[in-house]
């Protein structure tokens, strides 16, 4: 009962051997990748991510982004996609066990460890999509003519690497603990770990760098060379960890007999350790010294340009922004009188960088005569706040005088600062702590705050209600009296030809 078999040619198999096996792995990865992208958790997470990205891209940075902040802002939301990928890929790995197709699939050509490799590779398209979103988010801000600073490629890699890491965790978990509940439990465990690793608020320990996305406690914008985040080490750590977890999944699914997988796993663990050690070394000494230098003696690292009677000194990355500062200064000067409009000013960019991004610290007012502080943020409320600071120095000669000023000069300061703005009353609300346009309120500033009484506000509003040219003529014509120390609000109103204020006039 024997016969020679004449095998018909197989219609679709073209090559055999390792090359065909890897081609099959990539084909399977494409198959699994398509299915992964259609999983409900992944779709929902991506939708949320995209909505957040669009919203964030349109509304953030008041139209004046600093790219060293933009890169970090791309890191958090991809974690949501990563967690959804963890769930999705874990279910995909469990599929054959859950539906009892293992018996069938185990006798097919592509071995289990190669199928694991395909599951790992199926995460790559999602990571690439996240990379595209991260790139688009960054590019959108970077292409704005108002953008300053430099982004870090390593910071931009964190989002896609997080997706790869979580995906690898999902595959490994599927091989180690093939039960559906394992993935949600792992997610809870990872979230708990991230809470504990981050430590208490303000802590800057090495452990916080063990999680993928590491936030900062400060909203301050620093020059990119003073950021001091170990971004490249962290990207290396994440890449190494993702590779380690991925290769562990291969080891647990039959790849242990391959020396290349074992060697790769050892190299990946080494890479992870190198990254972990590198990122835990803290802020380099030279960066710490540079931070101190930039804080206490910014003039040593700044370049200055003179325009008319004003010198603008900025950190190198902010030099393109001096034109916008000059426009505000010119507007304020144009409304001043009594020679103040020609008073020499120095607009100096100042930062408090000594604590890095660990916390926000207020800047002290500049003690130098004729010097106005400008920060690293711009647009939104920062622009009218700067106008107020310029007006304070034009009126008083010193920025630090603002804190002690509680007399009728505040009306002149505020009118000079705001009257040249497109919508003075809106800007008045924006600079006041409680967003009000009536009554007393604190006026915000980069350095010293001003205290406006109800009487100040009343007279200012009346002055703003006048035609601007008419108001300007009254202010300029009486500049000396309006800016005399201790002048009362009632007197200011009288000089300007306005009704006497009825509100209280006591600073708190």
């Amino acid at each position, binding site marked *: *009962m*024997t*016969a*020679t*078999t*004449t*095998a*018909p*040619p*197989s*219609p*679709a*198999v*073209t*090559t*055999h051997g390792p090359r*065909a*096996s890897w*081609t*099959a792995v990539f*084909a*399977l990865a494409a*198959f699994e990748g398509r299915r992964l992208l259609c999983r409900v958790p992944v779709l929902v997470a991506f939708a949320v991510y995209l909505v957040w990205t669009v919203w964030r891209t349109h509304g953030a940075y008041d139209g004046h982004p600093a790219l060293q902040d933009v890169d970090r802002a791309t890191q958090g939301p991809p974690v949501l996609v990563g967690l959804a990928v963890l769930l999705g890929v874990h279910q995909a790995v469990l*599929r*054959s066990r859950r*539906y*009892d*197709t*293992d*018996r*069938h*699939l*185990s*006798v*097919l*050509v*592509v071995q289990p460890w190669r*199928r694991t490799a395909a599951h790992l590779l199926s995460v790559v398209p999602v990571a690439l999509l996240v990379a595209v979103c991260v790139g688009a988010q960054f590019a959108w801000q970077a292409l704005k003519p108002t953008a300053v600073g430099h982004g870090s490629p390593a910071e931009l890699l964190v989002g896609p690497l997080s997706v790869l890491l979580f995906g690898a965790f999902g595959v490994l978990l599927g091989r180690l603990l093939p039960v559906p509940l394992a993935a949600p439990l792992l997610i809870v465990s990872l979230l708990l770990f991230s809470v504990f690793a981050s430590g208490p608020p303000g802590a800057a320990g090495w452990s916080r760098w063990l999680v993928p996305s590491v936030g900062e406690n400060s909203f301050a914008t620093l020059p990119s060379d003073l950021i001091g985040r170990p971004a490249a080490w962290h990207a290396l750590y994440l890449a190494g960890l993702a590779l380690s977890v991925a290769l562990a999944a291969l080891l647990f699914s039959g790849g242990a007999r391959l020396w290349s997988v074992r060697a790769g796993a050892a190299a990946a663990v080494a890479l992870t350790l190198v990254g972990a050690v590198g990122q835990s070394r803290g802020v380099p000494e030279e960066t710490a010294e540079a931070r101190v230098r930039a804080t206490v003696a910014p003039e040593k690292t700044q370049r200055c340009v003179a325009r008319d009677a004003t010198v603008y000194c900025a950190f190198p990355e902010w030099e393109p922004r001096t034109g916008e500062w000059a426009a505000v200064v010119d507007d304020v000067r144009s409304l001043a009188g009594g020679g103040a409009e020609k008073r020499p000013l120095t607009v100096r960019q100042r930062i408090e960088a000594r604590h890095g991004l660990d916390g926000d610290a207020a800047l002290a007012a500049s003690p130098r005569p004729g010097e106005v502080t400008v920060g690293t943020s711009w647009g939104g409320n920062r622009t009218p706040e700067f106008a107020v600071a310029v007006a304070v120095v034009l009126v008083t000669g010193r920025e630090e005088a603002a804190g002690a000023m509680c007399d009728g000069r505040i009306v002149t300061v505020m009118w000079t600062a705001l009257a040249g703005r497109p919508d003075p009353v809106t800007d008045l609300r924006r600079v006041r702590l409680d967003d009000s346009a009536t009554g007393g309120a604190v006026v915000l500033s980069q350095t010293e705050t001003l205290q406006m009484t109800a009487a100040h506000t009343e007279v200012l509003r009346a002055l703003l209600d006048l035609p601007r040219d008419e108001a300007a003529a009254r202010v300029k014509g009486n500049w000396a009296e309006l800016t005399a120390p201790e002048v009362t609000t009632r007197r200011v109103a009288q000089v300007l030809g306005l009704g006497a204020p009825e509100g209280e006039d006591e600073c708190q």
Partner: protein
Amino acid sequence: MTPTVSASGLSLHFGRTRALDDVSLRLSPGVTGLLGPNGAGKTTLLRVLATAVPADRGAFTVLGHDPATSRGRQEARRRLGYLPQAPGFHPDFSAFEFVDYVAILKELTDRTARHREVRRVLDEVGLGDVRGKRLKKLSGGMRQRVALAAALVGDPEFVVLDEPTVGLDPEQRMRFRELIAHAGEGRTVLLSTHQTEDVAMLCHRVVVLADGTVRFDGTPAELTARAAGRVWSSTERETGAKAGWRTGTGSFRNVGDPPAGAELLAPTLEDGYLLTLDGAGAEVTA
């Protein structure tokens, strides 16, 4: 003249249970039936030949490749189609996706050619019109045909079918017989079944397995001939019969050693199968 499958002395134990004991057989193109009672070792033999589990002892080759070696196993699997007993399904896959998935795992890597092949096998099993439907929406018979399509995709030279007609209604079973007969043209098909009708209608050869050993290996006609002169009719069940049952006419059909002068009947394949088992779970009474 190399047979498709050549096995000698295959043995396999699960703990103290002897699943296969010194099984030797050679398979050549056409449909070979594998008959045996429950627990005879049919599924185990099929799983060994399908390279799902290795034998403890013995050796076999599939199309000249030795599955005991890693390379040989891979080469054998490239030429193998396997339909396990009560196969599982991925309910969210469409019929096309499931067969495509299996095709990828069989290293059919050219996407265009693979999709053409998937459409071909789905058409072959009569599911071309429902290939986009989710498996959870298909009937049991349709799913079984999807599984057969998955076994046939890539045009394997050796096809292992483990009780493919279990649970199917008569119409579906007839349809499946057509498909298996068609699959056996130019291929080697090993069909495990409880249905002697399947073997009688489809197979050019039959192997009977009991207690892990081969009890018969020959043609269906030879198996039927084993019962020649050993099937007779009587008005009551004969005590000497190994099996006997009342037929629709009211008389008893007995299988065993007939008494002198008994009214002999023409044997069937099932009679030969029952006599071959000879006590290995073959007692049938009614």
